[in-house]
């Protein structure tokens, strides 16, 4: 009979996970067979690491391996009581020895079992010694594996034995301690530490930046790399950092790393961190690098995301993966995990102890099942911090009582413009009409042009609950098929909406112009108007084009259109940019709200006509309020981008032998106009899309707090927002300022306080940014829905960017952007060589340049339900091993319109 070896293995307790992993690797090897695993050991493993437990269980279930468990705790002869003064750990070790001993004796009793030996495997030195005294055959893993002659490959799988002194540092304390606040404060004062806001990197969880928000520091950005240096900082926390000496500075890595290891404990970190360090660095790209020494203020909020269920079914501790990739995964305790799988949930962080790989948190609420449109909308509103609760009673109590009508009082103080032929031009389906226009010929031959804006500030009085709510919301948010109002609907869609054939209060801006569109006189007044028509852009365009129509409205529109063209020409001559964005709105099914098709935005003359007069009004008002209140006017600026931003644009143009001048807005606009390539009509649009990406964000600011007012994109020295008070709070403030300036209203303290004004601007900027992100997220979600319904589509696109391991492709037909990656985890990546000068990427034999035309398949990758992605795969050019064959069921291939 073949001699068998039975083993009692005890995965090491006191050592780090790395060792545990090495051991499980060994155990999984097919050479290792006939193993008895004690229940007590199994429990311990389960307690420590769910993934390892899972792997052991898998090994047990594999029949070939002859792995068995022995429930020694429930056996009369192997159960032992914990003795006085004995630690739980020692007791368990003793239990293992007793069980091993029992097994030896048990097998010896068998008649044919003479050749059977029990070998105990342990890496605990003390345990080994005691077991030897006890009369057992004991080996350390390493010794045992070495003794298996003829299997040298096993040795490779065995991790190096850690020295005993490594035990403590390696296992428990994962992070350095945070300094107390008093030491941080003194450190900041004497310049040892820097204070700033932490921003985690979206693509690499081991990297982050701290923006130093103090003026006068030469360093305004500190790079952090590695878990130890990040030291438990969470996105948006205010932290104190210590700078490293220059020789330890590193360059930001361009690797994409996602924290998706299945283990719920610390593991494999060393490996990934090494990946980071492997990047060779050129001294010019080194960034100031440091480490977090303490947290000044946590900025934790409840996070939306999904539960990744622990591999142990009954486990109550689970990892929660937030939707925002910049937030680390959070460990939560819940008994209802089974119900929460597949649901979008909210979780709040409670704390992050220094010996824990992940922060601890708790379940807050269930938002609904993932993928559900309602739920997803809720998630993206919450994630972008968009206040979207229904308005409270307190807010609603400040609404005017219905039925509302214009009073005698109003008539006395307002200019009565009801006789004017005013009309509005808006996109179809618009219910919050906040601007109307008129134009008529005066007796002296000049033209009178009026822009009438809804007088929202008449209804929203400063300081009341309604006003505070609007100020905090900042802006109306438009999502696909949904609008989150800044002010209650009664105002936004009724009383303030300048609908046709009803009397409404307005704030009018009236100019006297000559036929060359030069302003002779400007005049602002509160007024009462009665719009004669609410037109859509298309309707207005039709009236203008239709020569047979001779009514007042049409005449007025024609006048406006003519002036607008002159104004636009003049503006462009001054260097205003016309940029392009690839966004394509959806046709939404009105009942199910499912996207059914994409509509490309068609720009008509009337669009730019309305825009032109809004700009004119905004500029006029900006000048007026700045003249009146030089310290506290609320203005909007658009800083010119730093020259470095244009790098990519210049390189891209150069690849087609074109020069782009970026010295001024004018130069840029001119060179963009001249940049065309024959047989490639979409090239110019692509360039403009690229140029848009180079721009800075436009922001609100208070004139008393800043000196640079310039609006780069519009090429205007001063600018503000006046024309959409229904959907932007900034406009309400501007209305109030203007009303004070023309003595139509009284002022109030907060309006004149530049610090309060500035704080308000910060909030508005934040809300606008978030609204924009939310909007994009909503479009992205609907895009996914759209492609989910469509299945796989083949489409032509252009390369927008070339990255180290991917190309970013823009599909003009859908306004869709996506990446084609060339390195795959599961298959060997093709040979890539990246040239940052071009930039070009050589994949095998083919070189990708920017703006190259490619053909791709588009499909929805729903493998990660939390981050469903549009996936693109290359069809043309054909590169063996990279591109995919054309799918057979090609949907009716509409020729993509490239010059849209």
């Amino acid at each position, binding site marked *: 009979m073949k001699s068998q070896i039975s083993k009692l293995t005890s995965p090491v307790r006191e050592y780090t996970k790395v060792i545990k992993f090495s051991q499980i690797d060994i155990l999984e090897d097919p050479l290792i067979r006939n193993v008895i695993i004690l229940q007590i050991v199994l429990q311990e493993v*389960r*307690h420590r690491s769910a993934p390892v437990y899972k792997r052991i269980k898998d090994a047990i279930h594999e029949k070939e391996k002859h792995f068995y468990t022995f429930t020694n705790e429930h056996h009369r002869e192997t159960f032992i009581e914990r003795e006085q003064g004995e630690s739980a750990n020692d007791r368990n070790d003793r239990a293992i020895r007793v069980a091993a001993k029992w097994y030896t004796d048990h097998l010896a009793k068998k008649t044919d079992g003479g050749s059977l030996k029990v070998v105990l495997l342990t890496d605990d030195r003390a345990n080994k010694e005691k077991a030897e005294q006890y009369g057992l055959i004991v080996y350390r893993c390493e010794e045992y594996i070495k003794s298996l002659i003829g299997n040298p490959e096993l040795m490779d799988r065995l991790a190096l034995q850690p020295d005993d002194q490594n035990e403590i540092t390696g296992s428990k304390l994962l992070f350095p301690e945070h300094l107390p606040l008093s030491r941080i404060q003194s450190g900041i004062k004497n310049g040892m530490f820097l204070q700033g806001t932490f921003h985690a990197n979206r693509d690499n969880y081991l990297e982050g930046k701290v923006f130093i928000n103090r003026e006068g520091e030469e360093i305004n950005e500190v790079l952090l790399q590695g878990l130890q240096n990040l030291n438990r900082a969470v996105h948006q926390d205010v932290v104190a950092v210590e700078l490293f000496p220059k020789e330890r500075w590193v360059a930001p890595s361009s690797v994409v790393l996602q924290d998706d290891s299945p283990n719920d404990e610390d593991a494999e970190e060393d490996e990934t961190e090494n990946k980071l360090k492997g990047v060779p660095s050129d001294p010019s790209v080194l960034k100031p690098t440091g480490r977090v020494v303490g947290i000044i203020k946590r900025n934790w909020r409840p996070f939306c995301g999904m539960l990744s269920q622990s591999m142990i079914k009954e486990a109550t501790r689970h990892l929660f993966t937030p939707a925002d990739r910049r937030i680390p995964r959070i460990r939560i305790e819940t008994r209802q995990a089974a119900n929460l799988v597949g649901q979008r949930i909210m979780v709040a962080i409670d704390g992050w102890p220094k010996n824990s790989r992940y922060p601890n948190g708790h379940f807050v609420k269930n938002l609904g099942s993932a993928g559900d449109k309602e739920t997803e909308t809720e998630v993206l509103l919450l994630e972008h911090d968009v206040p979207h609760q229904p308005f409270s009673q307190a807010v609603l109590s400040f609404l005017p009582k219905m039925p509302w009508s214009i009073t005698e009082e109003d008539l006395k103080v307002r200019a009565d413009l009801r006789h004017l032929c005013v009309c509005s031009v808006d996109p179809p389906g618009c219910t919050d009409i906040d601007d109307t226009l008129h134009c008529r010929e005066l007796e002296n031959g000049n033209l009178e042009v009026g822009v009438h804006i809804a007088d929202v500030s008449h209804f929203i009085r400063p300081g009341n609950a309604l006003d505070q709510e609007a100020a905090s919301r900042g802006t109306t948010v438009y999502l696909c098929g949904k609008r989150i109002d800044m002010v209650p609907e009664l105002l936004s869609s009724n009383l303030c909406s300048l609908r046709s054939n009803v009397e409404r209060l307005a704030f009018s801006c009236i100019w006297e112009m000559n036929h060359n569109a030069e302003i002779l006189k400007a005049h602002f007044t509160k007024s009462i108007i009665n719009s004669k028509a609410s037109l859509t852009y298309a309707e207005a365009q039709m009236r203008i084009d239709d020569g047979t129509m001779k009514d007042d409205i049409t005449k007025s529109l024609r006048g406006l259109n003519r002036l607008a063209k002159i104004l636009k020409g003049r503006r462009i001559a001054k260097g205003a940019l016309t940029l392009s964005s690839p966004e394509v709105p959806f046709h939404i099914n009105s009942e199910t709200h499912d996207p059914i098709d994409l509509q490309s935005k068609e720009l008509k003359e009337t669009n730019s006509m309305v825009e032109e007069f809004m700009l004119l009004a905004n500029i006029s008002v900006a000048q007026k309020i700045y003249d009146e209140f030089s310290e506290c006017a609320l203005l909007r600026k658009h800083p010119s981008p730093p020259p470095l931003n244009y790098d990519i644009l210049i390189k891209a143009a150069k690849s087609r032998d074109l020069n782009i001048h970026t010295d001024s807005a004018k130069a840029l606009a001119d060179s963009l106009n001249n940049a065309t390539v024959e047989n490639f009509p979409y090239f110019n649009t692509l360039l403009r899309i690229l140029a848009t990406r180079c721009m800075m964000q436009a922001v609100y600011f208070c004139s008393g707090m800043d000196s640079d007012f310039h609006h780069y994109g519009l090429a205007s020295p001063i600018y503000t927002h006046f024309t959409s008070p229904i959907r932007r709070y900034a406009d309400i403030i501007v209305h109030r300022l203007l009303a004070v300036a023309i003595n139509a209203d009284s002022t109030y303290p907060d309006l004149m306080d530049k610090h309060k004004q500035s704080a308000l601007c910060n909030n508005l900027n934040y809300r606008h940014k978030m609204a924009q992100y939310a909007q994009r997220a909503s479009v992205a979600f609907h895009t996914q829905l759209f492609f989910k319904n469509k299945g796989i589509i083949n489409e032509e696109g252009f390369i927008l960017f070339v990255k180290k391991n991917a190309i970013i492709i823009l599909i003009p037909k859908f306004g869709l952007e996506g990446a084609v990656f060339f390195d795959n985890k599961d298959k060997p990546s093709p040979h890539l060589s990246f040239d940052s000068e071009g930039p070009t990427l050589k994949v095998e034999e083919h070189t990708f340049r920017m703006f190259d035309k490619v053909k791709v398949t588009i499909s929805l990758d729903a493998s990660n339900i939390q981050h469903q992605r549009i996936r693109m795969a290359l069809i043309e050019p054909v590169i063996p091993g990279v591109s995919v064959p054309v799918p057979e069921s090609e949907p009716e291939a509409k020729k993509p319109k490239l010059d849209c």
Partner: protein
Amino acid sequence: MAGLELLSDQGYRLDGRKASELRKVQARTSVFAQADGSAYLEQGNTKALAVVYGPHETRGSRSKSLHDRAVINCQYSMATFSTAERKRRPHGDRKSSEMSLHLKQTFEAAVLTELYPRSQIDIYVKILQADGGNYSACVNAATLALVDAGIPMRDYVCACTAGFVEDTPLADLCHAEESGGGMSLALALLPRNGNIALLQMDARLHQDHLDALIEAAMTACKGLSKVLDGVVRQHLEEVSVLTRD
């Protein structure tokens, strides 16, 4: 930390029992001299004391008495030290009132009340240590006490709980299983003819599993009845030895 694994792959429960295994039951009757009947019962770590007075004349208002049978008055209580957390337990809280009511219904089904019209039987039970299956321990203890008091019954009333984990019914749940594993069903059975005196469950369970669960609980009850019967017989033997001369 991972949660509790209620049923291991090897088929063992937390305390090492198999799925259908009961906890150890130990009981004594006639533990008090003053009462008409009394019993002390341990079911694993759950310990219950039951005392029976009666049948006697209806106390309090006469209107409560029934002309054709006896009134059964049950009172359930828990000792302050019975749970892990020491807690003052006032009489008449919602939980114990409910338990009292359940006990009353159980014993009305078992005791031959029609033999004692216009009288009253008092059953007092107290949980000294609670480790799951309080109701069943109380019923079992009270049965013994009723036997001790010599009150005629149709049969022993045996009660047991059962739970359902990983498609397996578990008999006689302990506290950890009750609190950690979802659902628990309590069943009081008259084992000889298989009549159910009380069946109670307030968790969700798929209907398909219900039969298996009741079956497991009934088997457990039948097992218990043997134990109780043994206790009674042994007590009788002891008493008869003492009173022989």
